């Protein structure tokens, strides 16, 4: 069934037609009209990676500052901005968008379709994210970066204690990036439920796609909470509402509830795609299907549900009623169970599979070694009395980096190496890949393991310096030294990727002998993905394919048609025409940005932005000639439209 094997008499002609139909726009303006999922997915990933480097530089600056007590390298003002921007960058501008980028790039490929369900929305999501990040960094470079922490607790972040536009910047940046998150969540959900190729019933969806589905649902419930919270904060700060003013009946604790109702699920939003990467990589490198597919999927769903019932463990020190707190302890402990089941299933998979070692697998091994530590310290943090001691100390700094770097960054770097041949068509240097892994593993543990001890020995978080004689100096120096190795690891990986892009040997379609549909395509995949929509007959699409695996015929090559299938069993339903290039997503992102950014400085900008956005939306929805023609054909009931009837399957 693989695309490479298909050779119908008209194949060359069809391929040329598809390449023309789905071609990317050209030129400088053209760059802003792109709606293809692979191009946008890569943009997401590259942009997020640039922000990751920025966040890493901030981390390095903090480590330099903390190398000795009462250091004057950074003052409190600079340090507060840097740690706030570091947190905000890593959470909002790197971790979530990079996972979304992978989703946007891979999900349509894995499902056997041509593009995501709403290509223009996809482009809009990217620009609004980009603007949010550029905005934050513009303010930061002007020495007006937010400085109240990535959580920006009121009243410290409120109008009285955070003058100027610093915290407003943070609040609007949240709106931008979470809007982008919601947009991607919507399109991935619709794509995953309606555009799967025939044969890919719910129980044959690759685990990575399942992880994106679960994450998308979580985003839809979690992101609005924080957007609401940051908007309330912005309103308090800009027009003097009283949401969080205790003297006028507001409540600062309410802020924390809303924030962590988002903030804890956010952790799962970040590392559940990591679980998906791990499953993909392990399947390919053990050569067997994942043991306990149903358990894997259901535990993902359970994690998503439980993830919404544990937020109060970030607030145990605020003095809530004890019985209520115990409930959240129980929930926080319970969430270990689904993750535990996943880990046991992976062990079972490795146990009974035939494991090949390569860089992606090394990163998965690193994921196990590091992430389980983070999970277990998480168990400690769930216990209220222990939490009272270690909350807001370096113990928590260690814990959260073990969870996020272990649970998300290790699998992510594994995924970079795993899909690198697919993106570029070339192999990276295995030696350099493994070097970067060892540097990261050693550097990471050197940097963050001592922080557990620092926290227990009384070092609080978010301090710009500490005093001599506290016994914290040596461990801080070890931590700062370890950061050098982490920087070297990232550098090695980047050099490896840059050099291999030109000089690496050709990868071919499926260098890892992996199982999901994207490996049936040439590397890099053509702009249209599949000439003919494929069909699948098992969970591991490539492995289970018959030599004469059918594919879908009867779809037009001269317009951007995708096959829409039924939600449960993916039976063909109808075809739908996707929009092509459009400048309007970019224009709408500009006008929204103008309105939201301007509102920080002058309330009327919001109205101006709204009117301009309205105009942009009219442009967005203005039908093309092709769409008008389709509409007339459909209304008049004349035959000839392609939207009539389902295409048939023909054996090749």
């Amino acid at each position, binding site marked *: 069934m693989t695309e490479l094997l298909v050779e119908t008499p008209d194949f060359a002609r069809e391929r040329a037609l598809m390449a023309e139909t789905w071609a990317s726009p050209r030129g400088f303006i053209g760059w802003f009209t792109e709606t293809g999922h692979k191009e946008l997915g890569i943009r997401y990933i590259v942009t997020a990676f640039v922000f990751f480097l920025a966040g890493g530089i901030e981390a390095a600056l903090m480590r330099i500052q903390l190398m000795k007590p009462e250091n004057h390298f950074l003052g409190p003002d600079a340090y507060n901005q840097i740690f706030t921007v570091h947190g905000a960058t890593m959470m909002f501008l790197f971790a979530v968008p990079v996972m979304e980028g992978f989703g946007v790039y891979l999900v349509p490929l894995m499902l056997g379709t041509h593009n995501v369900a709403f290509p223009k929305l996809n482009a809009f999501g990217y620009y609004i994210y980009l603007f949010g990040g550029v905005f934050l960094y513009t303010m930061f470079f002007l020495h007006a970066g937010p400085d109240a922490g990535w959580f920006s607790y009121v009243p410290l972040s409120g109008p009285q204690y955070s003058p100027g536009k610093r915290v407003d910047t943070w609040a609007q940046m949240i709106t931008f990036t979470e809007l982008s998150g919601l947009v991607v969540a919507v399109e991935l959900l619709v794509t995953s439920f309606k555009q799967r190729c025939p044969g890919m019933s719910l129980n044959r969806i690759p685990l990575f796609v399942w992880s994106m589905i679960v994450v998308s649902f979580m985003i839809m419930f979690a992101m609005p909470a924080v957007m609401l919270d940051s908007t309330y904060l912005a309103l308090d700060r800009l027009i003097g509402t009283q949401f969080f003013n205790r003297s006028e009946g507001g409540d600062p604790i309410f802020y924390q509830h809303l924030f962590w109702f988002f903030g804890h699920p956010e952790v799962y939003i970040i590392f559940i795609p990591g679980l998906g990467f791990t499953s993909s990589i392990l399947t390919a490198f053990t050569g067997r299907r994942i043991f306990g597919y149903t358990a894997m999927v259901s535990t993902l769903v359970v994690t998503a549900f439980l993830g919404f019932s544990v937020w109060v463990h970030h607030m145990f020190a605020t003095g809530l009623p004890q019985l209520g707190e115990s409930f959240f302890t129980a929930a926080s402990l319970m969430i*270990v169970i689904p993750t535990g089941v996943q880990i046991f299933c992976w062990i079972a998979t490795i146990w009974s599979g035939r494991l090949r070692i390569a860089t992606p697998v090394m990163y998965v091994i690193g994921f196990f070694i590091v992430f389980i530590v983070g999970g277990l310290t998480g168990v400690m943090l769930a216990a209220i009395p222990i939490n009272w001691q270690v909350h*807001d100390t370096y113990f928590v700094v260690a814990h959260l980096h073990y969870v996020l770097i272990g649970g998300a960054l290790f699998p992510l770097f594994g995924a970079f190496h795993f899909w690198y041949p697919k993106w570029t068509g070339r192999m990276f240097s295995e030696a350099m890949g493994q070097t970067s892994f060892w540097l990261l593993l050693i550097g990471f543990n050197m940097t963050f393991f001592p922080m557990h001890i620092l926290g227990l020995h*009384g070092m609080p978080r978010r301090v710009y310096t500490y005093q001599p004689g506290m016994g914290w100096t040596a461990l801080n120096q070890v931590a700062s030294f370890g950061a050098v190795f982490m920087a070297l690891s990232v550098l090695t990986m980047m050099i490896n990727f840059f050099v291999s892009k030109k000089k690496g040997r050709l990868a071919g379609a499926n260098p890892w002998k992996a199982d999901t549909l994207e490996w049936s395509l040439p590397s890099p995949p053509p702009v249209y993905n599949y000439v003919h929509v494929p069909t699948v007959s098992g969970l591991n699409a490539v492995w289970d394919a018959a030599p004469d695996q059918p594919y879908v015929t009867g779809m037009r090559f001269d317009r951007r048609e995708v096959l829409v299938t039924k939600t449960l069993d993916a039976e063909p339903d109808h075809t739908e025409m996707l929009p092509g290039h459009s400048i309007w997503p970019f224009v709408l992102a500009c006008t929204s940005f103008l309105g939201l950014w301007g509102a920080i400085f002058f309330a009327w900008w919001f109205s101006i932005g709204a009117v301009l956005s309205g105009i942009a939306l009219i442009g967005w929805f203005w039908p093309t000639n092709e769409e008008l023609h389709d509409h007339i054909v459909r209304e008049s009931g004349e035959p000839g439209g392609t939207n009539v009837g389902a295409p048939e399957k023909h054996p090749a």
Partner: protein
Amino acid sequence: MFAIALPIQSALDAAGPQAARIHHLFLFFFWICVAVYVITILFFLVAIVRGRRRSIVEDNPANDRRLGIFVGTCSAVTVLALFVLLFSSVATGNAIGSLGKEKPAQFEIEVTGHQWWWEVKYPDAVTASNQITDANQIHIPIHTPILLRLDTRDVIHSLWIPNLHGKRDLIPGRVNKFWIEADKPGVYRGQCAEFCGYQHAHMALVVVAETPEEFARWKSHMSEGAPTPMTPEQTRGQQVFLGAPCANCHNVLGTDAYGTLGPDLTHFRSRPTLAAGQLLNTRGNLAGWIANAPAIKPGTLMPPNQLSGQEMNDLLAYLETLK
């Protein structure tokens, strides 16, 4: 010039029943977690070794059933361990909550957070005017449960004295309470644990745990006003103090200085540190602090003061009497 931390600040060195209970619970969790980690990683490594050696994939129903039993057993053990942990956590929480309900001898201390120092008050139930006000240190008698009432004048802070207890937030508009008790005499350091602005790093305090007799002596000393200046130098110094910005913000019992913006200075020379734990309380540090506090602690409300050498000397001479 900076304070050497004579007192200790560690969650692993309990000096009272609350911290000791948490420490025990922590050790219990810690060893269980270590065991879980070792076992899991062991399984993982064995799986890798077996997986590497294997020549064909074992993917058949019989083998899957065995693996299912493995996963099921591991999950069941996990659930069991979690229940044990949950019960031990709740039991410790209840034990911590019960302090103060058993012993009759106890009293209350009010701690108010300011950016970036701690105001400590010992209310007197009989005569309200006998209330003692102090800053950045808490004196407590040992073997006595103390109820701390926590409030804040500005943003959220969090009081954390790891040797005695975990932390509790100071939140505007609500009074948080918690109980501490010290078992052995000593000086324990505490620090603000909720990010509160520029000088969050320099917002420390010490808890001085002493025998009830020592504590009573300290208390009666604290309720006295400041001594009258004796030497001409000290008298001139007092005039500098009352005329310069000092008196607008600081209170000295028995003089016309009754500012409440900064720490009470009536007995401030008896505190071990200056500037909320940042500097040792020496004459030199004090002079530097008065001359240019913002240079030492950027963001502080304590302004720089332009005093002549003579004025500074007199002022220091006067301030050193405030013991």
